[in-house]
């Protein structure tokens, strides 16, 4: 977890540390260009919510940040690392190895729309797996850490439960704990509540809100406008593979300058 004082220093003006710096990211699937040069900077402790119609490129952009998708061009830096690449002896950018990419990803938490918990492992084992296999932590230490993380998301009573016996909201909270156990510098959320029943959305949003208050740097793809208004420091409006508008929730939601933002908001609000 990042230090709790970071939230106070994250706004513009000197000292804020850049956690994410994405520059002119382009991505095509076949002949279809899904990202048409997206740039975004996120400072430590900042929460950025990505909104926009489906197919606008939000999720693809999020997946470029931890290299689930390899951009066709552009640069993504997270916590000072060039994601998916490294510099060779002559200072040229070359592809990083699978091992190096894995190391970069270990610093970036990713929460999926469909949770993707390991069904053959209990909640505790789901959370312990990363620390034990990736960080080579001792099982005892990892167990203590995992119990801490599960307690933090309110699931200390579900430690030995298998995913099949958890509700959607509980699964998503285990998934968040699994990411947090790796002490990430950045958390990415891909529509974390879209697959949930309405009555359990709140419990997941509460966990994400608590994380924001603890100073975690986050990028969240979400359709929850109320949540974005409350938690986001900035909101980025995606349309047709580009960020068409970015600003504080008040600017974007209350005084949108772009016609496409207005049209989108009129549909979801």
């Amino acid at each position, binding site marked *: 977890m990042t230090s709790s004082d970071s939230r106070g220093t994250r706004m513009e003006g000197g000292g804020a540390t850049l956690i994410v710096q994405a520059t002119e990211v382009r991505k095509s699937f076949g002949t279809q260009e899904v990202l048409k040069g997206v740039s975004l900077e996120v400072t430590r402790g900042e929460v950025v919510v990505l909104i926009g119609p489906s197919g606008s490129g939000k999720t693809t952009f999020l997946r470029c940040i931890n290299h689930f998708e390899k951009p066709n061009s552009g640069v993504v830096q997270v916590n000072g690392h060039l994601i998916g690449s490294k510099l060779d002896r002559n200072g040229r950018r070359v592809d990083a190895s699978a091992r190096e990419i*894995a190391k970069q990803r270990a610093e970036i938490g990713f929460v999926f729309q469909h949770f*993707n918990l*390991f*069904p*053959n492992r209990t909640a505790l084992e789901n959370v312990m797996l990363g620390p034990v296999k*990736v960080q080579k932590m001792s099982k005892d230490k990892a167990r203590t850490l995992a119990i801490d993380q599960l307690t933090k998301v309110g699931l200390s009573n579900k430690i030995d*439960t298998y995913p099949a016996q958890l509700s959607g909201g509980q699964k998503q909270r285990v998934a968040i704990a*699994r990411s947090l*156990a790796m002490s990430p510098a950045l958390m990415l959320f891909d529509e974390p509540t879209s697959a949930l029943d309405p009555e359990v959305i709140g419990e997941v949003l509460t966990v994400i809100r608590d994380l924001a208050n603890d100073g975690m740097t986050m990028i969240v793809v979400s359709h929850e406008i109320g949540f974005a208004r409350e938690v986001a420091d900035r909101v980025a409006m995606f349309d047709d593979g580009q960020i068409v508008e970015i600003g504080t929730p008040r600017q974007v939601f209350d005084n949108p300058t772009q016609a496409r933002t207005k049209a989108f908001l009129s549909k979801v609000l």
Partner: protein
Amino acid sequence: MLTGALQFNTSFFWHELLRPSSGFLGGLGRTVYISVIAQVIAVIIGLAVALARRSTLRILRSVAGLYVWVLRGTPLLVQLVIVYDGLAATDIYRFRDMTLLGISILASVQAAIVTLALNESAYMSEIIRAGLAAVDVGQNEAALSIGMTPAQSMRHVVVPQAIRFVIPPLGNDFNAMMKSTSVLSVIGVPEMFLITQEISSSTFHTFEIFLDAALYYLALTTIWTFIQAWLEAKVDRSWGIVRTKRSLLSSVRERFQDPRTLGLSRRA
């Protein structure tokens, strides 16, 4: 002999069934251990071939594809004769009787295990490939997201989950494997079928002794059915899915009545 009366020798049938000769038991034993060893080797080679077929290296994919194509595309019987007689006739390789850990293994048995394992590995690789493909892609992404390399993800996340999809078709294949050991008689492996044939030609009680052999094959595949059910239940338990406890008889009845559910139920 053609008197029209039933020539079934009941006492011979029961004697050979209940107190089989040591020769027959030796054949039964060979049938079992050849099948088990060949199947174990086949699973290991099959996993390697299945992983090769998913490799990012084109050459590895091609070689694995070729391997499966050839071994699945030719009859086991032909493969057996090529491996045992063909290789020896051309002086490429000659299997010889050998002693391993104090157990003597006939040349023909070695050839049989090698051929059955290779043949079955092609089928196993397809079964394992399907099992790996059945694991949701999100599982691999989740493993990568916590910093695993693709190899770690395969080992700790994808393969363990594929096992659940692999066991039922593997059981099917092993059932077939135990029965196809009967073709090993053509290269002179003294397994159950060959011994039965020998008893038949020396006693002329063909119907009786082959009926006995059929019952022994049936017993083997039946025992395997139970072992497979136990394996499936064990894997399900490791996923937090438990079967309700029931008597052996009712679980057998259920298994034969509705093989789809296998008495599965999720813990509430």
